């Protein structure tokens, strides 16, 4: 391989990362592209995971691209590989097994993981996550037929799951709080109508604050449901699974100390470039400077994330175009009183 062939590395194999790799291949046909992901599965549709509760348990049916896609597009896909550090000056990244790789351009599209508020962290072993295929299978295994799922927080990912759980004959209780409807910003005046819509869907809504906040999560007593939530006012709630849905937190531990600016996410300019000219970011991992709001903003949702992946790749390969969010982020009620989140429009 000649030395003037550029090496693009993409960290993350989600919507943003794959869209970016595809665009990079189109715009820089001779380049070398490496995609590094901590996931064992190739690119799968994370938004489609609720299908597990409809009986779809074959991981192959969640995979987006056919098996030879990466080979055909000459994208070296390195699965189950953890990046532990990035040196922005030397333009290298280090993998967990000590391998160091040089890059000409780096796109960080590592996404975000479920955020668990710090005061809930001690209960983590008793909670069921929902970020990966294996998580979804574990929840499905733990939830009996007509079982009772308790959702904490209630972001749009959780509410989307709730729709499926209700459709499949499960009971759903939402312990609501400030994260309900995240990332939509719902005013206190609007909130009651959306909560009423949830109840109309069949979700039992419990306002955590009215019960003195969540005091604990524990194993249920023998013969009773597997989990018990206690509240500050002494009341409790039992269910088969307890799942936290408090929004997401960027997955960027490996970028700490890299020399790239970070606040909550990687800080990027409107062209998605970080404070290092060779490093870009796209998707849930980045905060984009938004002139109209005079602040760094997160943009979530499948359409936004895909557009970010494409834009970052375009700018890596010579364009210098600004970010324009393609997705309306407004939460709405339909005429028949159903909640409509644009983040659910992924199919």
């Amino acid at each position, binding site marked *: 391989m000649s030395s003037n062939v550029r090496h693009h590395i993409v960290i993350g194999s989600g919507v943003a990362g794959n869209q970016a790799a595809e665009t990079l291949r189109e715009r820089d046909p001779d380049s070398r592209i490496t995609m590094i992901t901590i996931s064992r599965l190739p690119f799968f549709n994370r938004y489609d995971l609720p299908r597990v509760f409809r009986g779809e348990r074959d991981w192959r049916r969640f995979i987006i691209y056919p098996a030879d896609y990466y080979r055909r597009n000459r994208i070296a896909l390195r699965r189950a590989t953890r990046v532990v550090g990035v040196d922005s000056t030397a333009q290298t990244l280090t993998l967990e097994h000590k391998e160091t790789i040089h890059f000409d351009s780096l796109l960080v599209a590592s996404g975000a993981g479920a955020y668990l508020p710090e005061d809930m962290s001690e209960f983590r072993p008793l909670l069921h996550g929902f970020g990966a295929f294996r998580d979804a299978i574990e929840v499905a295994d733990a939830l009996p037929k007509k079982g009772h799922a308790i959702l904490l927080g209630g972001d749009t990912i959780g509410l989307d799951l709730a729709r499926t759980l209700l459709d499949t004959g499960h009971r759903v209780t939402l312990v609501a709080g400030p994260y309900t409807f995240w990332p939509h910003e719902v005013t206190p005046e609007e909130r009651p109508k959306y909560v009423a819509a949830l109840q109309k869907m069949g979700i039992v809504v419990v306002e955590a604050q009215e019960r003195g906040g969540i005091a604990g999560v524990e194993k249920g007593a023998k013969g009773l449901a597997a989990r018990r939530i206690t509240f500050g006012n002494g009341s409790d709630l039992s269910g088969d699974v307890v799942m936290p849905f408090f929004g997401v937190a960027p997955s960027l531990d490996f970028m700490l100390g890299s020399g790239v600016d970070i*606040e*909550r996410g990687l800080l990027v300019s409107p062209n998605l470039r970080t404070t290092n000219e060779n490093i870009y970011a796209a998707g849930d991992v980045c905060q984009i400077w938004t002139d109209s709001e*005079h602040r760094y903003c997160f943009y979530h949702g499948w359409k936004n994330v895909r557009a970010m992946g494409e834009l970052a790749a375009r700018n890596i390969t010579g364009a210098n175009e600004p970010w324009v969010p393609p997705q309306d982020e407004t939460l709405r009620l339909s005429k028949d009183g159903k909640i409509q989140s644009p983040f659910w429009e992924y199919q």
Partner: protein
Amino acid sequence: MGNMPFRPDAAAASAAAEGSVFVSDDPRAIGWVKQNVPCQNACPAGTNVPSYIRSIVESHYGESYEVNREANVLPGVLGRVCSRACEDACRHGWPGNGDPVAICHLKRVAADLKDAGHRITESLYAPTGKRIAIVGAGPAGVAAAHDLSLFGHDVVIYEREEKPGGMLRYGIPEFRLPRNILDTELHNALRLGVQLRTGVAVGNEPDQVRVSQLLADYDAVLLATGCTAATPIPLKDEWEKREPTEVPGIEYGLDFLVAMHRGVKKSVGKRVAVIGAGFTALDCARVAVRLGGEEVTIHIRTAEEYIPVTQEEIFEAKREGVRIKGLRSPMKFVLDAEGKVAGVEFAQNRLGGWREGGRRIAIPIEGSEFIEPCDTVIIAIGQQTTHDFSDTTLQLDRWKNARLGDNGMTSQPGVFAAGDYVSGASTVVQSVGHGRKIARRIDAWLMGRERHRQVVSIEPVAKPLRERADDFIPRQHMPTAALGKRVKSMACEVEAGLDRKLAAEEAKRCYLCNLRYQIDVDRCIYCRACIEVAPRSCIKLVGGVEIGADGTYGKLIETKEWNKIGAIWIDNNQCIRCGACYNVCPVKCISISRCELTEVEVTA
């Protein structure tokens, strides 16, 4: 003890093998310890960390406590509130080695788990007849008083507050530092004849003691008054000249904490905005939670990654409900119709260049102002020194702190200064370390000579003190009080301390960097077994070595060509003291010696 010659490496290895112990003041030996024991070198008090952790491995908690006390007289205090520069430097935290050893938590173990009847051992000098006045009973003043009393001087501390401890008592909340621990350690520090005059202010008021009078009455005066004035907050427009604390609901964090610890009943509203990024800001926010604040937010100029607070403190604050919002600079306050604070107007920041100590510059963006509603504002952006208590004019540095000469003395003969009064707002351990350092300067000035000097003791060690398996022990987590219980009480200590089992596991993680592994090249048969078994590239075939300015060995010049190999060398900077090389060596040409900085008495 007189000077002893430094013995070259090979001789040291030989001596180790023979079982002899000797001391050296050769700069190369001292330089080796400073270079290779990063925790001790980073500690402002110079605590011999590997030694006290080794004592914990052996369950000798009292011995561990004494090792700590040689460098700092408040191990139980600093085991709770230290800023942990040692952990930032810990070799176990270097890339590829995992997490740093929980050095601070182990310091607390030494203090908490020592026998109830533990006997403190200290060597006293004969009385000198010299009298020293110390102004301020904070960490610097107390540390200096302790050491000066050991030197045989008569020490009197003047403290304006009713109780000693300075910021330890009046600045740090009880849920981080229980007062019984503080009281015990202060008592132990001052028990060797130090007179403590509390409630006696040094100043220029008629009922106060003058510095000039102290200078006349004593042989030396040490000013250790700390940083007691809140740094004014820079604001915009009409707030540039307006004093924000005149507005109901706005207070400086230091004043807030001091008043509370003096016994004033404090209260906060439901929405509390804390402005600042240090330990004081975090303490104020956590106090506000305990006082009933329902929405407590810390507003910082940069981002969490760059603020000078330990991650554990940030995590515990968040667990208690404190939120941290970054990239914002306060511009002005918003008042309601009654003139009470109703919000803070911030400007959005972007990150600029780097400041000293890994911190970042924040640059406000014009036109990006926004308002955060609140009903209480606590400003905790820093503290500064004041000099209005002194009737003696001292030269100040550019930061308006007392300027010291090499002998630790201010521009006024006989007046010394220590701690935050010299450095500006720093940390407890820095104050303790500086107090101790200035005590030696005062003693040298009073006695006309140095009575202590630093040396390295080199002691043979028969075999490796660790096992390779110890390298895979994860950092042990500090147990904490239940969330529901702790936020209801100002006195419920959050960190519960490591028990014996957790302490033993954590202590085993320490690499014991004060152990020096060396190969006797004359006996080595170059079988390479040690290289094969080494978990890191710590054993090198070298053609030469760079020599540092002080004679210490620098970077090794490696070679793979057999005809250029001059020696086989253990790179102690890479070595994690696992002992694998020692165990595998067929000719036993590898020796281990314990190299520790210590002080010896200099006879007249």
